[in-house]
């Protein structure tokens, strides 16, 4: 029973993977591909945030800033210094990780609220710097003309190519995260979430672990930001605001703590919600504009209602049913 259940899960994930990979071969709608590329970008950030919040129990209201750091770094290097794309993306990921490390070292001694404040403050500081460091960021006018991803002379300039690139990275991020939570560092994170005292007594260096997870999630945000910059071709400071940080946290909360699949689906749904009017065929113009107009209210309500009625997020809903049938402690 347990085996078939697990196999079923893996099969479903496989089918989903194939479906995602097949999209660009089934449609050449550039809009659809673009929107789904944004979904993939957000999913990469959420993979890291799910580890940080859902597994290690640490809040961050500053991940939009790491996203922006990665985006600006990669965009700056490729536009101003003609750095090869791959190197620039790695640099973007690296600077976000370094930023995460620098922020985490002092902040993670702090508990819940103080950590929320520190990360929020960081986001606000970075927002100002994105505007003011004009030589690098282009100020309010933003950075335009960011080149497409390329390796050597091979340029990925079609929406389908960029879609596959982003989703390939997203798949790797989730696969890596899923592996991680089932081995030593991941177990330590879950332990930390359960009982910090118990984790310490088990020999887990909790401070070091928190710093590592924070830096990892910041790196993933930076990586997503760098990919985003090259997918969009234009970035400006308003995109990396506190609201985006909050939206990202909302995705993890709605998806559920201690789960990767839940936040993944929440990232998909909450990102698509912003474009829903254009994605559902036959939706009247008036209905569409109402949905667009009320998007923030809907997200906020979904967040509140989820937390009230599904404390563990949607993942818990699924898990609860599963535990009812067969005892399988493993979460994918």
């Amino acid at each position, binding site marked *: 029973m347990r085996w078939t259940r697990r196999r079923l899960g893996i099969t479903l994930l496989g089918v989903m993977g194939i479906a995602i990979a097949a999209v660009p071969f089934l449609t050449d709608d550039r809009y659809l591909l673009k929107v789904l590329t*944004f979904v993939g970008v957000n999913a990469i950030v959420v993979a890291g945030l799910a580890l940080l919040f859902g597994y290690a129990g640490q809040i961050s209201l500053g991940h939009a800033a790491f996203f922006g750091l990665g985006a600006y770094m990669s965009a700056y290097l490729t536009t101003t210094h003609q750095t090869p794309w791959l190197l620039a993306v790695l640099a973007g990921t690296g600077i976000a990780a370094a930023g995460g490390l620098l922020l985490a070292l002092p902040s993670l001694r702090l508990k819940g609220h103080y950590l929320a404040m520190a990360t929020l403050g960081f986001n606000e500081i970075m927002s100002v710097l994105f505007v003011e460091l004009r030589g690098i960021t282009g100020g309010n006018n933003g950075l335009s003309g960011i080149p497409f991803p390329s390796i050597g002379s091979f340029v990925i300039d079609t929406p389908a190519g960029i879609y596959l690139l982003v989703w390939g990275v997203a798949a790797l991020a989730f696969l890596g995260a899923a592996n991680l939570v089932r081995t030593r560092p991941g177990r330590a994170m879950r332990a930390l979430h359960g009982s910090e005292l118990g984790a310490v007594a088990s020999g887990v260096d909790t401070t070091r672990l928190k710093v590592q997870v924070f830096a990892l999630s910041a790196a993933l945000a930076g990586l997503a930001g760098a990919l985003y910059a090259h997918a969009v071709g*234009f970035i400006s400071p*308003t995109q990396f605001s506190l609201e985006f940080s909050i939206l990202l946290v909302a995705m993890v909360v709605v998806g559920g703590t201690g789960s990767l699949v839940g936040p993944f689906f929440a990232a998909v749904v909450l990102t698509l919600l912003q474009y829903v009017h254009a994605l559902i065929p036959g939706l009247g113009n008036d209905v569409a504009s109402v949905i667009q107009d009320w998007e923030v209210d809907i997200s906020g309500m979904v967040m509140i209602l989820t937390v009230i009625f599904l404390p563990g997020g949607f993942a818990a809903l699924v898990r609860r049913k599963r535990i009812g049938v067969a005892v399988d402690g493993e979460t994918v």
Partner: protein
Amino acid sequence: MTGKWLQRMLPATVVLTLVVASLAGCSQADSSSDEGGEETAKEPYTIGAVLSLSGTYAGLGEPEKNTIEMELERINEDGGVNGHPVKVVIEDDATDPAKAQAATVRLIEQVDVLAIIGATGTGQTMGMRGDIDRAGIPQVSVAGGTVVTAQFDPLVFQTPWSNSLVVPFTLSRLRDAGITKIALMYDTGGFGADGGDVVKATVGEYGISVVAEQTFNPGDTDMTAQLTMVKGSDAEAVVLWNAGKESAIVAKNMQQLSMMLPLYGCHGNARAEFAEGAGDAAEGFRFAAGKILLPETYGTDSMSYRVATDFVERYTERYGKAPDTFAGHAYDALYLIVEAMRRLPEGFTTAELRDEIERTDDFVGIGGIFTFTESDHNGMSEDDLVMYRIQDGAWVLDTP
């Protein structure tokens, strides 16, 4: 168990009902507004619009949307474009460049538009450029940033007076008033920083120097500290570049500090909310803007006067308040495209439409009289600007 469940359910039900009810109310309210074009024989010409209907620039996007919807009805009642009804598909970019870009792709790919109006903001307009270029579709932006036309793109036109037009006009008036030292204040957001840059780059040409430079952030609630710095300088006038509610705070703080220096704003202050917010602190406040605020400045016998008064009347009647300059920018953008379409034969291409918009000559709009050239896609001149002064809470012409 049941009791607890009920206890949880009850509040949620109330909230849900409220939300659903308000949603329903809203959709009813909205459904009437989108029934523009009537069915005619010829297939419609579709134009896209990317506007900020939510987010930071929601207050700007709203009059733009109102204007487009109102004018569209009139255009179609008059028989559309050469018998073709005109349809405008409006997308909300939520003041986010990425969403503006996605919306652009949708308008191009899914809706197959001939031209695009927007975006409301400069950042959003710039974010759209890559896809505009790829599709070769003309774009008429209603954003005021200098960069929109300064970073030239043959496909992109701009209807608001760009800062590179308003700044020289304002500086020349300062020079005429004998002022040589100014204090410059601007917000660090897109509009203010852009204006600040242009001022700093051009003051030299007018024999003026900036002796104090202070910034504030959008949303700041008090500028007395910045103004105290200004007070300590030997500035003879304050030049303020900002389009938000901070302008009123600056005016009020100056009054509070008993600063008698003349205060010069910009076209971003041409909003009723400013004069109302600043109250009597706004007395004597000068700003350059287009003529729509006082249509008689067009000259009462001019074509511009008739166009503007007609628009103001219809807008006021329909929406219960006078149109602001943003409404005017949307009006100009829509008609620049529609008029170009009217001049073209059946079956024109988007490239031909672009060329025709560029050939616009002496188009009488709300913002001014537009004449585009191969290198000027803003199309207006300093003649389209006048200097206003606020007197008894109202705009009056400030004659030099």
